[in-house]
């Protein structure tokens, strides 16, 4: 009898399949897309257009510690060190086209959605120019008001319609509205299961070791519109529920001492180091702003709802929402502290960190630290600085704990 695969094993299989299928499709002469990480993949899925995600790929390259080669390539042609390292890695890969972290096929069409940042607009603009291919832009205006405005929703919906026409022309296929509704339904459900699984980390102790969550992130990016994605997150949720029932914490060999939120992207080239330092102090990362960002839910016949949902992720919202969001996470996940990653590559996240930190501190009293790092550039991180700051956080959290017990 076949033993059932764990979600971790399934995750690995599905990711491999995802890349293999894209390469195979390209080999057969089918068109392949590159897309940003929180883009309306429903449209591509409906037309059965294979898509890969440069951010996933760059993260993998960073984690395999081979980013420098690609960074040297792009900096060598004039890209500034200031720029997002995902972009520098990917633009370097576009020329080198070979990596020990795995290969992706070059794209025939680009899917660019700026709900994650406006940097992707410039990055993808350059890819389109260099490769001379069409780019479909989904412009989701930043929400300076608390909620997404009706004007924004109308505009985004209009872009969805325009994109469908463009995709039909590029692919030569007819957009099947029924299939679209089915994909919308699956996408929403998959997002709900993702949310359910990641929410289970709120249990005390948490069954989820947060850095594990970083691994699953690749699949919420690329499998959101697929039944396999739904099944994966459902399985993961079941595993976590089973662990909770047993009262199992994140680690077999030690107790969860402190619970923190990690604000920002991981330091991929230093995943091991950053994780070990946290574990040494018994610090478990139980949540971040990412789970919510991919919880994109809407009714399956509601294009306006879909527009609104896509524009609603954390980094596309105003400071007030951002603060409320983190305060809610502090409460829901019983956080003892917050780690803010001042990510040299991500200005959209960084340039509000100071104020958010102050506001959250004022409302919750929870200690926090900010450290300097980068998502993929190995040169912009100092282990010594990180260790010092995490230790300082641990000391503050211990102090707070003792104060409460007194």
């Amino acid at each position, binding site marked *: 009898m076949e033993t059932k695969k764990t979600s971790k094993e399934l995750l690995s299989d599905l990711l491999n399949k995802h890349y293999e299928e894209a390469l195979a499709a390209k080999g057969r002469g089918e068109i392949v897309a590159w897309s940003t990480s929180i883009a309306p993949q429903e449209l591509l899925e409906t037309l059965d257009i294979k898509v890969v995600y440069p951010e996933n790929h760059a993260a993998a390259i960073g984690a395999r510690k081979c980013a420098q080669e690609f960074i*040297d390539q792009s*900096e*060598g042609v*004039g890209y500034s060190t200031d720029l997002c390292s995902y972009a520098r890695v990917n633009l370097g890969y576009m020329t080198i086209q070979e990596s020990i972290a795995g290969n992706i096929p070059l794209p025939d069409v680009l899917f660019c959605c700026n709900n994650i940042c406006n940097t992707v607009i410039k990055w993808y603009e350059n890819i389109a120019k260099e490769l001379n291919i069409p780019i479909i832009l989904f412009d989701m205006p930043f929400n300076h008001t608390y909620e997404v405005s009706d004007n924004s929703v109308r505009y985004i919906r209009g872009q969805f319609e325009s994109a469908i026409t463009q995709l039909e022309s590029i692919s030569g296929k007819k957009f099947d509205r029924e299939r679209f509704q089915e994909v919308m339904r699956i996408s929403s459900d998959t997002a709900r299961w993702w949310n359910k699984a990641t929410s289970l980390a709120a249990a005390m102790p948490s069954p989820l070791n947060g850095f594990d969550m970083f691994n699953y992130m690749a699949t919420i990016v690329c499998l959101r519109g697929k039944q396999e994605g739904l099944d994966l997150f459902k399985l993961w949720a079941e595993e976590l529920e089973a662990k909770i029932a047993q009262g199992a914490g994140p680690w077999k060999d030690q107790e969860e001492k402190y619970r923190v939120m990690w604000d920002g992207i991981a330091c991929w080239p230093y995943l091991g180091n950053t994780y070990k330092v946290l574990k040494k102090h018994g610090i478990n990362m139980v949540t971040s702003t990412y789970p919510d960002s991919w919880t994109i839910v809407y009714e399956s016949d509601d294009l306006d709802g879909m527009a609104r949902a896509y524009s609603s992720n954390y980094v596309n919202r105003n400071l007030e929402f951002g603060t409320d969001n983190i305060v809610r996470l502090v409460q829901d996940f019983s956080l003892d502290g917050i780690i803010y990653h001042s990510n040299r590559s991500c200005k959209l996240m960084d340039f509000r960190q100071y104020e958010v930190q102050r506001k959250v501190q004022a409302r919750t009293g929870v200690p926090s630290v900010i450290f300097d790092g980068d998502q993929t550039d190995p*040169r*912009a991180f*100092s*282990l*010594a*600085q990180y260790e010092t700051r995490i230790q300082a956080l641990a000391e503050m959290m211990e102090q707070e704990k003792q104060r409460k017990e007194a």
Partner: protein
Amino acid sequence: MFLGVDIGSSSSKAVVLDEKQQIIATAVINTGTGTHGPEKAVMAALLQAKLGATEIKFTVATGYGRITYEKADKQVTEISCHGKGATFLAPQARTVIDIGGQDAKIIRIDDTGKIENFVMNDKCAAGTGRFLEVMARILDCKIGELSAFARNSTQEISISSICTVFAESEVISQLAAGAAKEDVAQGVHQSVAKRVAGLANRIGIRPDIVMTGGVALNDSMVATLSQELKQNIAVVPFPQLVGAVGAALYAAEFYRKQLVKTLL
């Protein structure tokens, strides 16, 4: 007789050239702009050449302190002077790399000896002589010793941070973890080499590649940079005088042009 004066932030160099483009005298003084260094360098060179100041027909100043040096007839940047000086001393030179105390520059020369393009780094200590000085201090040695340590390295250690402050903490961490001074010293050289190579890639390098400036006297630096670029690098003789040589050559040129103008 023509005089070239190169006034840097920490040293002053002077070169005297005759009408046949022969170098008659040279001088290096270890104080730079804002001190009496420039005058001392000029005096030392004139003494060596057994000349009076009035026998100098034209003086060109270069380097950081060129603007405020009043005795110059003209001032030309060190980019032009390093380019000119390098091609004079090494006519096959097509790429000149100068890692100075405060900046790094790469100069591309075309086949007629003219400057084609240049790129400079002067915002950041990493990739300059300053980086080596800072690291030497941490390793508690002089620059010369740093180079010797690097030569005896047996294991590769990476100092990867672009930021000098972060790199310092990397070096300290390595030493605290028991890494050998030799290996750390080599890592430091590699770090500078990587920065300079990055700069070089931006304008593209073409052989023959030649190094000028004080850091060119550091043989570990030359070797490491050569490895990083995967190219041969020659060191111009008397590399720290290249700027002043170029300035003196410009002095001769400007004097000739001036003469031609007055004759017409």
